């Protein structure tokens, strides 16, 4: 059944009440999404300062000045590069691990609900709590370094400019994996049994079956994983802010949203931050479209 079908039993006389029922939601979307979205674009083309509530300040039109500032700021370039590093680590790892775990779970086996719960628990837990544990694990004198002994990186993980961003990417992969395992588990239900049987009759082994039947069968879910990963990367804030002490060392783990916070709210340049936000939305859309093209090729 197509769950997205627009058709529902129509009935005269209920039209007004239906509109009434959705009014609060529409007002909510306008107030929290539409107005702020338009407002960001407006701010990004003006000189904008924070003022005391009620006080009026000049907000002159400055054209593309804010965008020019965003594009010439080396830290902004670095932050977008960091997101690319994040995606390069996060996407293949997430797709690979969650597909393997979901395939393993997609069978009659003992302790099935225990495994599912184990994978899902990090996903439902607050980032702040988990970041605290990871900082404890990967800190200079943390458990990981104690186990590694002389092999421990110097400078340590979270203060190392090469390793800080990969640690964040691994953290996010670990935290979100359960969600994607469930996603793939659901997608696997839609892969026809007969395809495996046909492959089996043709003499394909388990590994061959995995690559020739499972992987193409869950392709729509893979597209979704990539898009989610892009959105997560674009949203990254708590991890660089808390795990690596404000995006350090030397902006090596800074993210665009972290810069929006630092430039916009800490340093009082909301116009710069608004322009950065608009650029970020364009980046998300571009990468999502590209991902869709790439993962759905041949479909």
């Amino acid at each position: 059944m197509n769950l997205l079908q627009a058709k529902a039993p129509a009935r005269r006389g209920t039209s007004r009440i239906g509109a009434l029922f959705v009014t609060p939601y529409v007002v909510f979307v306008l107030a929290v999404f539409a107005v702020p979205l338009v407002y960001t674009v407006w701010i990004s083309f003006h000189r904008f300062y924070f003022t005391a509530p009620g006080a009026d300040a000049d907000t002159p039109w400055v054209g593309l000045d804010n965008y020019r500032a965003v594009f010439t700021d080396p830290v902004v370039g670095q932050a977008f590069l960091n997101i690319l590093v994040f995606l390069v680590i996060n996407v293949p790892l997430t797709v690979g691990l969650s597909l393997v775990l979901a395939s393993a779970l997609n069978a009659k086996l003992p302790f099935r609900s225990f495994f599912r719960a184990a994978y899902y628990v990090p996903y439902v837990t607050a980032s702040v709590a988990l970041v605290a544990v990871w900082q404890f694990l990967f800190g200079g004198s943390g458990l990981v370094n104690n186990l590694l002994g002389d092999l421990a990186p110097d400078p340590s993980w979270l203060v190392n400019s090469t390793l800080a961003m990969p640690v964040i990417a691994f953290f996010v992969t670990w935290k979100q994996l359960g969600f994607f395992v469930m996603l793939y588990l659901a997608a696997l239900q839609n892969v026809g049994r007969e395809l495996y049987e046909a492959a089996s009759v043709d003499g394909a082994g388990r590994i061959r079956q995995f690559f020739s039947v499972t992987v193409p069968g869950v392709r729509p879910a893979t597209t979704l994983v990539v898009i989610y990963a892009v959105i997560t990367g674009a949203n990254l804030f708590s991890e660089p802010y808390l795990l690596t002490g404000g995006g350090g060392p030397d902006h090596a783990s800074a993210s665009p949203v972290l810069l929006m916070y630092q430039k916009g709210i800490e340093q009082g340049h909301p116009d710069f931050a608004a322009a950065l936000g608009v650029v970020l939305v364009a980046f998300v859309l571009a990468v999502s479209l590209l991902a869709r093209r790439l993962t759905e090729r041949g479909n």
Partner: protein
Amino acid sequence: MSTTAATTPPRAHNRLGRRVRLLVLLAGALAFLFPFYYMVVGSLRATTTGALSSAVPADVTGGNYAAINGAISLGRSLLNSGIMTGGVLLCTLVFGLLTGYALAQLHFRGRGTVFATLLLVQMIPFQLLMLPLYVLVVRDYGLGDNYLGMILPFAINSTAVFLFRQFFLQMPASLFEAARIDGAGELTILTRIAVPMARPALLSGVLLTFIGPWNEFLWPFLVTKNADMQPLAVSLAGFLSNLQGTVSNPTGALMAGACVLAAPAVALFLLFQRHFTSTDIDSGTKG
């Protein structure tokens, strides 16, 4: 040929396959659960360090919980988290059920547009709207350090609305028709027939809605400057970044706070796990 015969390879092969499968799953589960184990053990030890010996529960104490309570007033933070989460849950249940029911079972002008918006909204990353929302809510409306300001951006969870709609869509329309012929109003149909039948969707909706505001850090961090108004995620993050010097076993206290923050969401998930199945995610992502 029966299907079971076709899908079951020879026994020896099958047994090996099952062992490999279990081994992979077990290794994964250990990697997933170890940080939680470490967090709980760390919160209970009198001295918590990164040494290997710290992974063993020894000289167990409740002192870390007392210490974190003294540093960030746990009760007050929990109350703030509860009010924020409760407000979001209430709004999502009341307005989300109305919207979901209307989108699934009622015909009205603009329904297609509202549904398209519902899908679109789920794709917009919230953080991108943080700045204009901050300007509007904190500066223009003066809702900084205010529960309303904390709740507003999350008030109606669109994913939950989508979940409700999918569930109402699967109910037989004839049931609602019969009630209408008997003269029941739409609100009565919703509260007396649709909602009681939608109890499983309601549970996953509650769970889904709960973890958002309970775990949220960035928005309440922007909106609350007064420590008395901060939810636990924000006050714990404050402790993590700059208050650790105030207690004798800072890591232990931090782990204790992390346990308190993690416990409600994890407990709720484990309790309702059976209801929160892959089918929800399936229906939630078919868009």
